[in-house]
């Protein structure tokens, strides 16, 4: 589904502060795999995720999505395959648009935005059903401006919006880092459910080792721009929170 081969990425190349963020990383993520990436700050996790998303281009190496070479394609050109959830819970939704309008936009992720107006009642019902999953009562107020909602609610919306249109690859960049413990649990559980239910291919970067231990079908540890550990689901099952904590000491 996603294939990275020999990716190298420098920041500030040729300058005194040169950093080699990715050092020849190769990674194959087959369909329906839920890969969790952990690692120290600056180890290259988020850079790796951005390579898949298309917000960064590799200095060398190739990125393939579903067999298409996309190394130089921009993020908005990859949206037909990829949906994203950001670390900043405010970044994934448009505050000046209503909940319904946000979902409308999300439902057009893989298509062009034409001069059509309005949404069908079938779409409204679908959005309400989706909102009802959250148990936040938002389904009763679909015309609320998203800017009036809390960070936890907005991150939940981002997640639901990410799967509105035929999603195939879901990228989650520390989706719970900015949330309180309760919202954090809610988001990770929702993410896990959606990924399982819809059979998505997912890549999640996280600093929360409890989430890393409990979720995902593969666990990847990054250190200094390289993959240092790569556990498949069997190996991951043998691995508990305590052993993950050990990796960081």
């Amino acid at each position, binding site marked *: 589904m996603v294939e990275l081969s020999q990716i190298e990425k420098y920041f500030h190349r040729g300058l005194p502060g040169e950093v080699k963020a990715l050092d020849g990383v190769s990674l194959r993520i087959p369909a329906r795999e839920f890969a969790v990436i952990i690692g120290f700050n600056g180890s290259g996790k988020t850079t790796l995720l951005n390579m898949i998303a298309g*917000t960064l281009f590799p200095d060398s190496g190739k990125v393939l999505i579903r067999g298409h070479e996309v190394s130089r394609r921009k993020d*908005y*050109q990859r949206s037909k395959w990829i949906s*994203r959830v950001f670390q900043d819970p405010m970044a994934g939704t448009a505050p000046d648009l209503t909940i319904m309008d946000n979902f*409308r936009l999300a439902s057009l*992720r893989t298509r062009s*935005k*034409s001069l059509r107006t309005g949404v069908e009642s079938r779409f409204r019902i679908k959005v309400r059903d989706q909102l009802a999953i959250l148990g936040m009562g938002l389904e009763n107020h679909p015309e609320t401006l998203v800017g009036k909602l809390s960070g936890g609610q907005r991150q939940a919306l*981002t997640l639901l919006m990410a799967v509105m249109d035929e999603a195939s690859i879901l990228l989650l960049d520390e989706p719970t880092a900015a949330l309180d413990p309760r919202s954090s649990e809610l988001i990770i559980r929702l993410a896990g459910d959606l990924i399982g239910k819809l059979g998505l291919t997912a890549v999640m970067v996280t600093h929360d080792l409890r989430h890393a231990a409990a979720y995902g079908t593969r666990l990847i540890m990054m250190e200094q721009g390289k993959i240092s550990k790569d556990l498949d689901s069997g190996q991951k099952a043998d691995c508990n929170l305590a052993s993950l904590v050990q990796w960081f000491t």
Partner: protein
Amino acid sequence: MNFYLSAINLGFAYCGMGLGIYITLRIFNIPDITTDGSYTLGAAISATLLSSGHSPFLVLPVVMAGGALAGTATGLIHTRMKIDPLLSGILVMTALYSVNLSIMGRSDIPLISTVHITQVVRFIGNDDWRWMTVMVMFTVVLCLLTGWMLGTDYGLAMRATGNSEQMVRAMGVNTARMKVTGLAMANALTAVSGYLVCQYQGFTDINMGIGIVIFGLGAVMMGESLLGFTRLQSTGFHLVAVILGCVIFRVIIAAALTAGINPNWLKLVTAVLVLGVVALPGIKNKLR
């Protein structure tokens, strides 16, 4: 009374610009200084073509295309060369001064005996009311068009672009192109104001656009503070508020003039007024 009627007329004439500034300021968070130049550009094209006998109906699309081109220039400088939008606008505005001068061939063109857009309603006897009818018609049409556009799927993507670029790109929207299109639309609207004002006042002057962007920003913000007293928040109400802002601002300036303020102080009065509108929310919060 006639004095106020012409202030109201002029307020409506500025609605195109008001809507344009609403798009750039409130949707893209860009105070677009190009406005000063594209407003004059609209007036310069209008005066040049009208005075050589072209129909006002044919002139209008040319004016809008000219404004759109100016906005596109600002947009491309901002998005392609990664130059601050404020500076991009100043650059284009400065360049437009020469463009406008060369379109006009001189620094002012009177429009005394040329055919006006008011000929569509020549059955109305009174000149002021003829203009009022035309201005209201333009305002309604521009407002409906803008409102419709912002309500489409494309408009949703445009509104979201100013909110969270990251999100909109993830939704498959080329935000750079979106900004260029938005700036083009906004400046096309602004040029329509130049088209109307030059016909209404009967001349185009190369300096008529100086500081007009401040008026536009003030009108948009004034409209918003009016909206703040209500609980209305949909885009349609925002556009109506912009139009109210334009008209009220013009009437306030007319009132200042009748109160005996020296016309030389007009720009200062305008600037202070806008400062007041901008600073008001902050002052209110401090007092609390």
